[in-house]
């Protein structure tokens, strides 16, 4: 029944590895996002997709590559992981572009060692 689900919930990996986080929403929303929450709880948008099309790409290293196979899925792939990538990553969705009520997933806590 989870509206926005992301996997895995926890991810511990070594520096230099490549990892992916998956996100799926069953709300029928057109717009999906990735947010990063750092150790101080600061939430910042990374990417926004509308109907599989990239809308927002904040200043994020190109090691981060989102992929949206369909409008219900937005996955995040991270290459060459660095210590500074350790954070909680949240997937979110909203009904359509311009509707700013966002529904968040439970988050993926990424720890790079």
């Amino acid at each position: 029944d989870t509206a926005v689900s992301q996997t895995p919930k926890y991810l511990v990996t070594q520096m230099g590895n490549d990892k992916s986080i998956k996100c799926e929403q069953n709300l029928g929303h057109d717009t999906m996002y990735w947010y990063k929450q750092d150790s101080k709880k600061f939430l910042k948008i990374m990417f926004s997709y509308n109907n599989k099309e990239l809308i927002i790409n904040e200043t994020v290293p190109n090691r981060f590559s989102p992929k949206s196979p369909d409008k219900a899925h937005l996955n995040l792939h991270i290459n060459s992981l660095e210590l500074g990538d350790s954070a909680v990553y949240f997937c979110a969705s909203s009904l359509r572009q311009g509707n700013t009520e966002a529904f968040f997933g439970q988050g993926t806590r990424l720890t790079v060692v």
Partner: protein
Amino acid sequence: QQQVKQSPQSLIVQKGGIPIINCAYENTAFDYFPWYQQFPGKGPALLIAIRPDVSEKKEGRFTISFNKSAKQFSLHIMDSQPGDSATYFCAASEDFGNEKLTFGTGTRLTIIP
């Protein structure tokens, strides 16, 4: 560059008291101001939101006060309960067609019995 400034960083209030969390913004193009509530281990969830055509909005025990000329808005929680203990984020976005939310830095609220 912090576009939405939130205070205090943490707040402890006795049960039944009225915690107040304040936010200030600089971008006069912002016209949607939501508050999100986040419990430990969970994603943020929309609590209440306001647009600048009104100065106050109330939903249950939660009230947003908005001062357009001062570019400030605040969240008040009436008759606070221990279950309200969470981190609260204010946010803002530019217009109805721009779904990018800029978040404040968060307030960790603790309601003690």
